[in-house]
């Protein structure tokens, strides 16, 4: 197994686990975004650096390395959004339920039964 395979596999796993365990703090999300942004800028300014890093890791070209990293990052992003949507859904449910319970009886089309 090449070093890159090990790293990407670990990163994918860590993405899943860390996401559910720790990364729910927005601050950490921001650090991550800034980190990725800065790294991107460095690679743009020194394009050869990606090839060199790729060489160390056992990947042929720098572009391939970025491609692999992008896949991992996007996977993380999708999971992040999925979790946010789930959370929003549960809040919407809570809101709709409260409103429904408040209006129970008032919006009653028939006589309500209270034994």
């Amino acid at each position: 197994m090449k070093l890159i395979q090990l790293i990407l596999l670990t990163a994918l796993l860590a993405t899943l686990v860390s996401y559910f365990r720790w990364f729910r703090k927005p601050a950490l999300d921001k650090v991550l975004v800034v980190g990725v942004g800065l790294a991107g800028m460095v690679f743009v300014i020194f394009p050869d650096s990606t090839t060199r890093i790729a060489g160390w890791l056992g990947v042929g070209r720098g572009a391939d390395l970025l491609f692999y990293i992008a896949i991992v990052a996007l996977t993380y992003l999708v999971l992040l959004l999925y979790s946010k949507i789930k959370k929003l859904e549960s809040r919407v449910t809570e809101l709709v339920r409260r409103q429904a319970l408040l209006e129970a009886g008032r919006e009653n089309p028939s006589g309500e039964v209270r034994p």
Partner: protein
Amino acid sequence: MTVQRIYIIVPVYNEAAVISATLQDLLGTGYPVIVVDDGSTDALPQILAGLPVHYIRHCFNLGQGAALETGMEEARRLGADAVVHFDADGQHAAGAVSVLLAPILEGSCDIVFGSRFLERSGAGQLPFTRRLVLQAARYLNYLFTGILLSDAHNGLRALGPLALQKIRLTQDRMSHATEILEEVHEYGLRYREVPVTIRYSPYSKAKGQSLLNSVNILFDVLFKKMQK
């Protein structure tokens, strides 16, 4: 604890064709009925006019699990000791209510599940793929919850005082059936299955769950496990 106040909860989403018959049938049992309108866009309010039911409406559709939880929350507010879950689509017979409640009333169970497979109660009419899905669901439920029921997805249930107090449904859609089992396991609730008859009509069959939806349920359950 004696069980005195019992409510029947009927989640309804666009069931105008059959809801009237279902409710007439249920009101014959003498128990008060809570109808949870899960954002129906049909003429449900007009159909219910004049029927002595307790009506709650979600302003838009959330799913059956959410509707059941809203119904149970209302029942808790009304001081219920026990509730019965009953599908609106006309496939359950009102006679099942007393069968489900019997173990609760005698205090031997916290929660009672209806099963169409305990006795020869019409399960033979099920199409092969549905039976296959239900079998798979049984064992998946067992894997996740340690509880092996004969019928994984039966809408008929009775919850006694302890179950009503402990169980909170957070799975809005169809995954609540598995969620209930998880909570039964978690709180060590005493459960039992009783045989119930399901009447399959072309209408209720069309509303039955698809194979694809069981994949949804699997993912809902897995996701919830990972978040814990």
